[in-house]
């Protein structure tokens, strides 16, 4: 009988020690000091090294912690950050940046041109896995270096002295300044930042910053803490002492944490939150620079017939679609995102020209008949592949229904896991495939270049010399207005004449922000929120 007692005690002891072990291991809560805010963001993904494979974590971190050379404010004016001035030659191929002399890293050492070059050099090494490396390719020989055809010494980036950084481009690049906000153009301290795989980026001791905040704590999958960088050159403008970012895998958990006041800001929530918080000051709806559309495989019959592509486009009722999908979407008739602003005019790019096409069910039926499918007769069943996310599933069902009703054709729906969908898209293994594109930088080129014959995002076999020539001319055009004219022309041709894609909708982002926080700004290029100049009122 004593044996059983011992066994019982043994089992209880094992569980208690496991529990206690977990408790000791359990991470401490993030330390909030002074004026502090807590922000709920999505899952902890990717590196914090600008030259590494970055995702949401870096994007949230860099907004407050790193200074790019320069950026644009909401009026399209240049805001100098790490640089204090720049000049460019007439051909727009040599760009010279003069760094701020007083700028220093969070440990007090000076920020030099070599720190900027350090990121570029490492990003060009495929080992570091940068997904943004292709935005370095306008620089002389960068692409050849990445592919291992040339040595790093031939790179078109020079640092004549510590404060000067010169880029030599292959050819004119009108949007080069817009690229500077991308991670590959941000600095990483030469002293510590050696490889994306060494772990320097998430260690507060080696992860130096040149922006208004520095990394004070990082707990994988849980949170990271930024503290005010007292050595920042513009510290007078900075009011917060601490920013805590907490990771959440689930949008509903984020909204719950906001509701229980465990966080002050929750970003990118479901559209249902919009209805729940309607009319309350907590709700902050921002415009995303993103378009959802459908790729049509031009090699699949009958999608090679422009009349069929036009019919599909004209038969979809986007207003009705958006009403069903949610309050955070609005109809799109362009490839370029609805909310992308032309910096030179201050107007939305898509509103500067006529809508590429008008929905028209009658005309759609006529077109289908002309193509040899009167009332949908003999039209093959097309398969639509899309990721099994709520929004895309709703969209797919509405489109299926509308096409059946308006054209009497059948679409087979195939919901896929996200990675599977990406894989099928890259392999061009689809007839209709959902696509979403969020702008990487604030220029329509980020969208329009995807349809070029040789572009790696051109997954639908578009081979159009006329389109390629238009875009090519826009690349060489140095006059801003003429360049935009060419971009408009190219978009009207691709979307309104050739119907290479089926645009669906543009998106808004739904955020909750505590009333005690002031001074949150929105980054014009991406639509994301920026907290570096925020303040709290108690």
């Amino acid at each position, binding site marked *: 009988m004593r044996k059983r007692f011992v066994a019982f005690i043994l089992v209880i002891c094992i569980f208690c020690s496991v529990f206690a072990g*977990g408790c000791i291991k359990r991470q401490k809560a993030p330390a909030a000091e002074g004026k502090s805010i807590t922000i709920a963001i999505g899952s902890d993904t990717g590196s914090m090294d600008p030259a590494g494979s970055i995702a949401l974590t870096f994007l949230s971190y860099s907004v407050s912690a790193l200074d790019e050379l320069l950026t644009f404010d909401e009026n399209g004016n240049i805001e100098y950050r790490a640089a204090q001035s720049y000049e460019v030659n007439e051909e727009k191929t040599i760009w010279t940046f003069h760094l701020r002399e007083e700028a220093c890293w969070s440990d007090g050492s000076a920020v030099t041109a070599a720190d900027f070059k350090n990121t570029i050099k490492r990003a060009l090494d495929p080992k570091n896995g940068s997904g943004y490396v292709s935005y370095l390719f306008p620089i002389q020989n960068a692409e050849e270096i990445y592919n291992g055809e040339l040595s790093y010494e031939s790179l078109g980036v020079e640092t004549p002295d510590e404060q000067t950084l010169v880029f030599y481009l292959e050819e004119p690049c009108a949007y080069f300044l817009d690229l500077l906000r991308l991670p590959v153009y941000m600095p990483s301290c030469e002293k510590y930042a050696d490889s994306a795989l060494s772990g320097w980026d998430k260690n507060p001791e080696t992860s130096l910053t040149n922006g208004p905040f520095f990394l004070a704590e990082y707990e994988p999958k849980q949170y990271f803490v930024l503290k005010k960088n007292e050595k920042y050159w513009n510290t007078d403008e900075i009011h917060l002492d601490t920013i805590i970012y907490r990771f959440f895998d689930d949008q509903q958990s984020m909204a719950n944490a906001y509701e229980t006041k465990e966080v002050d800001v929750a970003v990118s929530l479901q559209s249902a939150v919009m209805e729940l918080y309607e009319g309350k000051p907590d709700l902050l709806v921002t415009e995303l620079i993103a378009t959802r559309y459908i790729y049509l495989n031009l090699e699949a019959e009958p999608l090679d017939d422009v009349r069929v592509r036009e019919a599909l486009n004209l038969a979809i009722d986007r207003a009705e679609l958006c009403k069903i999908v949610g309050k955070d979407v609005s109809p799109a008739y362009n490839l370029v995102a609805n909310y992308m602003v032309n910096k030179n005019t201050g107007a939305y790019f898509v509103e500067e020209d006529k809508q590429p096409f008008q929905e028209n069910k009658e005309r759609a039926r006529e077109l289908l008949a002309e193509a040899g499918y009167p009332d949908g007769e003999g039209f093959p069943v097309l398969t639509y592949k899309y990721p099994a996310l709520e929004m895309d599933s709703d969209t797919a069902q509405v489109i299926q229904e509308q096409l059946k009703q308006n054209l009497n054709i059948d679409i087979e729906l195939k919901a896929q896991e996200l990675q599977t969908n990406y894989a099928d898209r890259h392999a061009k293994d689809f007839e209709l495939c959902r696509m979403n594109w969020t702008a990487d930088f604030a220029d329509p080129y980020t969208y329009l270049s995807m349809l070029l014959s040789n572009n790696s995002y051109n997954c639908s076999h578009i081979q159009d010399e006329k389109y390629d020539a238009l875009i090519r001319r826009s690349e060489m055009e140095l006059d801003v207005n003429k360049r935009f004219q060419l971009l408009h022309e190219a978009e009207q041709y691709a979307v309104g004449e050739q119907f290479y894609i089926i645009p669906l909708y543009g998106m808004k982002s739904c955020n909750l922000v505590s009333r005690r926080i002031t001074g949150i700004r929105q980054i014009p290029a991406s639509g994301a929120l920026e907290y570096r100049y925020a303040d709290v009122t108690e």
Partner: protein
Amino acid sequence: MAVYTMKRITVGMISLFVLVTVTFFLTRMMPGSPFEDGNVSASVTEAMEEEYGLRDSPVKQYRTYMTNLLKGRLGVSYKQQGVTVESIIGNAAPVTASLGAAAVITAAVAGTGLGVWRAVSKKKTVRILLSGGTLLGAGIPNFVAALLLLLVFGVTLKWFPVTGLFTPAHYVLPVLSLSFYPTAVVAEMIYNTFAEEMKKEYVVLARAKGMGFWQIAVFHVLKNAWIPVLNYLGPLSAFLLTGSFAVESIFNIPGLGREFVSSVMNRDYTLIMGLTIFMGSVVIGVNLFTDLLCAWLDPRVRNSYLEKRWGD
């Protein structure tokens, strides 16, 4: 007994090997690549796959992986750059374990209490309420319980925090949701065996000797009634120690379950393998431990093992 133990360990190792091999080839058969992403161009994806040797034949990749595994290396994560699989498991496992252990203790203690109460209560309403509660507890899946608790005690009443595991108060809701079902099962088991044991002769004898009711219940009856529960706690612990994806993601807890699901979604091959090996070892280990414990406790079980050996 030693031979039996050795045999079980060998069988466990073989199962683990089969598990690793099957998982390895299944992950390689999944469409998609760890380096594919919405905004990453195909050429970059290809360069990365080349770099990590994912363009080699699966058999060659398997050989490399197994060689490293035998040297005790689980590799680095493809998605979390520069982070080893060991350190990811090292961070997530204690979180899940503390949650799982708390849930097992809660289930064992509460389940026993409720079971005994139901068995000895003379009030009919109590018995009906308890048996109804047990049915309900066994019928509600843990993610439904989690959502209910979260809505009522977190969002509406604001009694407990709902995200993370920073303070003891953070444990209350996730532990309750995890222990809902096992508590009901333990209560049911205890109730059944307890009622049966109470009718046995040794209880009558103890009574005749003048022992009090509670003395008999705790020191004699419960000891016997606990054996089947112990058998159930083994697999339960294995289940809870490997993490519940639903509860972890509802309460935003950085545990193994969440890690496992995201590794599969991300096609993070090395992490999927590492977690499979770890969870497989836990399940095999815990089950072996419970079997041995039962054999040690119960001569009937022990003898059946020995007979089997002789029968070989």
